[in-house]
């Protein structure tokens, strides 16, 4: 696909030299004639030069038809269109004449695997040069104690990370706000109240249960006391002694036998202070 003879390839500007040669020829007889004539000669010479340039094989052989088409298009457009009125007009017409074949030509090159292989190698070289250069400047600025782009990038990464964290918190907060803040309805409140009552009931049950257990424990303790003391003359349960609940608790705490305490309350009832006095003395 990539054609052309070696000699022409060594002279990449051959095509332009041919072209300008053609233009010189066109210029020679022009002195005495009208500008319109000069123009036509110029256009013909250009197209001719293109054709010849192709003849020497500077470009891909497969592109010959497009090249010829382009030369012919320019010749036709320029000769038949007449003298351009300003450079812009020339530009527009030039484009119109060359656009289609040039596009096809380039397309063919771009689809060519050999060309794409070269492009790949070119890009690889280009990128590796860029990499080397970047590394070198990185080091250089590092020596100068100046911050480099990668330093800035590291800082930016931190900012981005922080931003992500804040966003996650924000979303968690939104989830909370939207997920749980449903307004309470009358039924909901009623069922809640019902549940609270049930709970309270259960608690009461629990309390009386506890009281029963306490009583049993006391009985057990008394029975234990009886069995260890054997035939104690002061036999009889501490339960039989008149005492306040607080006094009984204190007595258990201090290890005081209620039967040995003299009550100072009404009817000889034992109070906390009586137990404390006894405990202190013992």
């Amino acid at each position, binding site marked *: 696909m990539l054609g052309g003879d070696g000699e022409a390839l060594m002279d990449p500007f051959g095509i332009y030299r041919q072209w300008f040669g053609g233009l010189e020829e066109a210029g020679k007889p022009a002195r005495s004639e009208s500008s319109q004539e000069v123009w036509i000669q110029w256009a013909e010479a250009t197209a001719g030069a293109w054709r010849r340039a192709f003849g020497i094989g500077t470009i891909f052989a497969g592109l010959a038809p497009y090249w010829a088409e382009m030369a012919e298009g320019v010749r036709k457009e320029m000769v038949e269109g007449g003298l351009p009125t300003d450079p812009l007009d020339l*530009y527009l017409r030039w484009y119109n004449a060359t656009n289609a074949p040039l596009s096809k030509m380039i397309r063919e090159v771009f689809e060519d695997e050999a060309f794409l292989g070269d492009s790949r190698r070119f890009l690889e070289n280009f990128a590796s040069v860029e990499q080397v250069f*970047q590394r070198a400047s990185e080091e250089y600025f590092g020596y100068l104690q100046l911050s480099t782009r990668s330093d800035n990038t590291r800082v930016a990464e931190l900012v981005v990370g922080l931003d992500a964290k804040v*966003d996650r918190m924000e979303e968690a907060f939104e989830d909370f706000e939207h997920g749980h803040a449903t307004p309470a309805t009358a039924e909901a409140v009623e069922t809640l109240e019902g549940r609270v009552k049930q709970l309270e009931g259960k608690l009461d049950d629990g309390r009386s249960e506890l009281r029963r257990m306490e009583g049993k424990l006391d009985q057990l303790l008394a029975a234990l006391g009886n069995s260890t003391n054997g035939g104690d003359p002061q036999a009889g349960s501490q339960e039989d002694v008149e005492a306040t609940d607080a006094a009984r608790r204190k007595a258990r705490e201090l290890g005081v036998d209620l039967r040995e305490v003299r009550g100072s309350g009404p009817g000889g009832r034992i109070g906390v202070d009586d137990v404390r006095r006894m405990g202190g003395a013992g």
Partner: protein
Amino acid sequence: MTERSIAPSGGEDLFDKYARGLRIIAEGAQIDTGQTPKEIVWSRNKAKLYHYQTDEEKRHPVPILFIYALLNRPYCLDLMPGNSFIEFLVNEGFDVYMLDWGVPGPEDRDMSFEDYVLDYIPRAVRKVLRNSGSEELTLFGYCQGGVMASMYASLMPEGLKNLILLATPIDCSPENSGLYGQWFSEKNHDPDTVVNAYGNLPARFAYAGTAMLNPVTNYIGSNVTMWDLIARDGLSDSWLAMNKWANDPIPMPGAAYKQWVRDFYQENKLVKGEIRLRGRRVDLSNIRMPFLNLAGKKDHLVFLPQAEAVMDLISSEDKEFIVLDAGHVGLLTGRGARKNLWPQVKNWLEIRSG
């Protein structure tokens, strides 16, 4: 003299015209774009979620969320007043949102399709649903954005009422994807070459990649057209806006570019059901919602078979493939779009946005 001549009426006039043209060549077209009023309802890193504002009554409760491509800027969807797809939809009473990926910096070189499809889009979808108070939305993907939208719809179909893809390359097998396919083939291009050297795909590479598909028209023809227009009836605002957009490329994050070339073009994994995002397999047959697929006959970036392939892969019963007589960008803007794409989308959506 011919009738095509641009003979000026006076020297001053001629000078004026040259000055205008040269200015555009030197500075680029200057014109305001993306002017439909919008509010940013969410942002993360460079990405922004726009909510388009209007006084128009919202007649369709299901909002539309546009997912744009990573290449190029999204204002071609909202080019300018009177020539804007988004403005049209908003005026038709649709509630419109768009996810703009923004311009990636060197710190974003590791951004991949996983990040976009599994983190950003789901977040944007939830945000749109909350913001609009709707239970469902229409997901609308353009080009590469369509690829992301279809992957999202396969993985997380909850909350999606409809799916619309516009000029979306689903099948990137070499026989379907033209010159791009050939350039991106394993033999001809290794994305690591670019990514290792630059981090991201540089904007100028992205631009050249597109322009080189038709270099004479893109590099010379656009200038010729400009001069021709200047000489004849002057440059229209639409032309200026389009020209500005076409010459305003952005870089593409390196990791995403590697995936784009390898997984989508070289191995064509999407149609084979072999794309995996953080271990989750993308199976297009999970798409069951009403589905509209639009493609351009003259599109030389995304060819018809590339876009059509998805029709046989999804499970939607309500599905339609519409071919329009336009190119990749001509689909969206200009007189042709106003007569074809815009009303077609409107009609399809109207009965599915209740």
